[in-house]
């Protein structure tokens, strides 16, 4: 053996005697092209759904589940395959993902998850890896096919509209809200279904002009009582004063602050506090027809001017409640149960009001909450943060 290697090295390290310079260069060049072609072809093969379901672990579990979903069959006739959602397009990350698959190959060879039971027991951990990835890349794979700018919100259901517009506003990661879009959720995770009805149950009816109420969920706002032109969106648990009730429509007044830099579309509950009360459309935000402007103050911390405004708009008659306490109770129990999966679930007053949004967004990749509940829980946390808590932290 040593002898062969020595001899090989001896020949390889000397100029060739019999093979011409041109031949060696062209030969090496061609071999390089063929190699690269072959390499990419092989890479493409590992990037097909057929390859992914080559292991029965995938074929018997996630693949059959996918067949029940919109991404298997839909009116547009577009099929999302495993690599569409799971493999990064960037070359380096793709290669890294392929190497990670060595773990999956290992698991197959040694049968770590070779039964449905073992797979289900592992699912929580596996799903978590994907959620982490989607939250880090802002659901880039979804956005390869879907695009907030191309969505026709008008033809969505009202609930989808409000939440999706809120999401588009922040370019939020799709998987924050659409967990379990392609496969069953891990066992210990509630499906998030039914929270809307729970929220609606908290709403009261028979609103009186002059009284104040709180929205139980995110609601669309309109410019007038015909409710045809959209004016913006109201966030969950936001205080409104009812000015008039006209059948299906109610006129509401919002006492809010906004930053005057830019269009001033975002409404905040309090001066210099990022507690979101909703958004206005650009037209409404720039028009004087719907608001009275109040005092302007500078936030010393950021140097930005804030302005107090009273906004008068219309909403559908419904989905308001008299007190925030029931909302807070619901938010607290949701926070306590859903977020207990986090290793260290911080106390409400552990952070201040303006720190909570960032912290909470970081937690969203762990929990399955719909957009209404996310908004409600975030507001609950902000309103019980160290800024409002009596105990010093």
């Amino acid at each position, binding site marked *: 053996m040593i002898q062969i290697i020595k*001899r*090989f090295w*001896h*020949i*390889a390290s*000397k100029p*060739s*005697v*019999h*093979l011409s310079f041109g031949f*060696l260069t062209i*030969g*090496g060049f061609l*071999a390089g092209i063929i*190699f690269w072609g072959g*390499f990419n072809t092989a890479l493409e093969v590992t990037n097909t759904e057929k390859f992914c379901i080559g292991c029965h672990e995938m074929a018997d579990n996630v693949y059959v589940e996918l067949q029940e979903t919109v991404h298997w069959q839909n009116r547009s006739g577009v099929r999302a395959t495993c690599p569409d959602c799971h493999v*990064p397009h*960037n070359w*380096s*990350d793709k*290669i*890294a*993902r*392929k*190497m*990670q698959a060595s773990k999956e190959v290992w698991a197959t060879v040694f049968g770590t998850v070779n039964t449905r039971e073992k797979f289900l027991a592992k699912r929580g951990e596996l799903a978590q890896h994907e959620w*982490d*990835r989607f939250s*880090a*890349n*802002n659901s*880039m794979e979804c956005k390869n096919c879907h695009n907030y700018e191309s969505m026709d919100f008008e033809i969505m259901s009202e609930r989808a509209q409000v939440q999706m517009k809120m999401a588009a506003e922040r370019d939020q990661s799709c998987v924050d809200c659409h967990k379990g879009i392609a496969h069953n959720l891990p066992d210990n995770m509630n499906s998030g279904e039914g929270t809307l009805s729970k929220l609606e149950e908290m709403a009261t009816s028979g609103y009186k002009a002059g009284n104040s109420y709180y929205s139980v969920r995110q609601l669309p706002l309109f410019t007038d009582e015909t409710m045809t032109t959209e004016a913006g969106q109201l966030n969950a648990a936001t205080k409104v004063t009812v000015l008039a009730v006209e059948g299906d429509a109610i006129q509401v007044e919002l006492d809010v602050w906004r930053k005057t830099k830019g269009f001033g579309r975002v409404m905040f509950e309090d001066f210099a506090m990022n507690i979101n009360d909703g958004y206005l459309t650009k037209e409404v935000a720039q028009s004087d027809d719907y608001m009275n402007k109040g005092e302007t103050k500078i936030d010393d911390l950021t140097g930005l001017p804030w302005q107090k405004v009273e906004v008068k708009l219309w909403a559908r008659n419904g989905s308001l409640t008299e007190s925030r306490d029931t909302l807070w109770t619901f938010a607290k129990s949701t926070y306590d149960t859903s977020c207990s999966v986090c290793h260290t679930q911080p106390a409400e007053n552990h952070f201040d009001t303006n720190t909570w949004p960032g912290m909470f967004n970081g937690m969203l990749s762990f929990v399955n909450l719909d957009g209404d509940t996310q908004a409600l829980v975030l507001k609950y946390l902000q309103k019980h943060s160290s800024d409002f808590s009596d105990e010093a932290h």
Partner: protein
Amino acid sequence: MSDNHNEPEVHNKASEWKTFLVLTVCLFPALSVALIGAYGFGIWFLQMFLMGPPGH
């Protein structure tokens, strides 16, 4: 190696061909795959310990 220099060792056309083929068909492709693999593992480990999952 250096003492090999003076020995007029015979290497004929066939052995040069063999060496060329071993290099282009086996060794370099295998090395390339190994290198790319190592690169992939490297990124993966970086992601695990330093960078977190791939961002944008």
